[in-house]
């Protein structure tokens, strides 16, 4: 009698053990997520848009959107990749309007590639070496600016944010072969300035 009564209990315990543990989304603690990824998202948006205020605004929107849709994050990709995807979508929505293209150049907070503040100072390099490196870097920035929006996005995700190709595919919502095609074309273009 006891055995019969115990069997359902054992079965229930076995079923209980097979149930996946409840995963807590990293986006539940938004302050930590913000502290970890805010600088990275801002950097990506700043050099994609070349507008400080717009980059700041879209960075905030990225985290706001992430918080609102945190339930849809299933952990299939890294939190950074998911945030990048939100940021890319926000940029896409924003740049759909023609007004953006017109005001992009005229914006007071526009970031110019030849701004010496954005040039990295080469510690330990001679003055001549630092100058040459700066000129080379400026040429690369100019080349990056000449890329199409999609190529620039992929190039920055790959070489500034150091995402893997499959992560870029997730972030941009593009098929992997398309990502590769855009990336190699962008790299072809940039290599000319090397």
């Amino acid at each position: 009698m006891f055995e019969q009564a115990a069997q359902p209990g054992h079965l229930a315990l076995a079923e209980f053990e097979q149930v996946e543990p409840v995963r807590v989304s990293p986006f539940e603690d938004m302050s930590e997520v913000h502290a970890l990824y805010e600088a990275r998202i801002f950097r990506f948006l700043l050099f994609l848009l070349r507008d400080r205020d717009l980059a700041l605004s879209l960075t905030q929107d990225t985290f706001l959107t992430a918080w609102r849709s945190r339930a849809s994050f299933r952990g299939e990709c890294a939190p950074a990749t998911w945030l990048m995807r939100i940021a890319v979508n926000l940029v896409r929505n924003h740049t759909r309007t023609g007004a953006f293209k017109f005001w992009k150049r005229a914006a007071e907070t526009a970031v110019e590639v030849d701004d010496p503040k954005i040039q990295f100072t080469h510690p330990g390099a001679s003055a001549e070496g630092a100058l040459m490196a700066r000129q080379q870097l400026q040429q690369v920035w100019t080349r990056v600016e000449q890329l199409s929006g999609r190529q620039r996005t992929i190039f920055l995700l790959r070489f500034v944010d150091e995402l893997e190709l499959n992560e870029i595919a997730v972030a941009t919502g593009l098929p992997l072969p398309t990502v590769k095609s855009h990336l190699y074309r962008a790299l072809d273009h940039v290599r000319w300035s090397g």
Partner: protein
Amino acid sequence: MSFKTTNSSPMNSHLTSEQMDGLLSARPSEDVVRHVAGCVRCTAEIGSLRGVLTGLREGATAAAEHHRGLAGPRNHTRRAPQVAWSLAAIALFVSVGAPLAVHRFHGFDRPAVAAQPATAISDEALLSSVQDDLSYSVPGPLLPLTGASPSDSATSTQRTN
């Protein structure tokens, strides 16, 4: 494995961009590694490209930090108009609202309802006192005639004569 010559640039006449990306991401194929090991030009190019991309990344990070720093004080300047509007609202309240409030306060200070009966009573008292004054201080000639006076009878006698 064949190495394509995609364009006439001397920098990339040996490795394609796909192969270069493989090298940059530390997942190159064995053929690529073998080629780079024996090719001075490709070795120089990959070194140069690595340096440039590292500079690009570090420059972007430094610039992003710089611009985030600039954005901080800017937020304060953006808040300045809000503070100004708040001050203007307070000033408006003080200049318009406060006098109105004070006026109302003083208006309510006087009990209007209680004052009305007091005024009515005083008016009635005033009227009765006027009435009394009139009744007590009327001079004799102005009193209403109650009967025939002696002068009247004299004049009537003279007429008969």
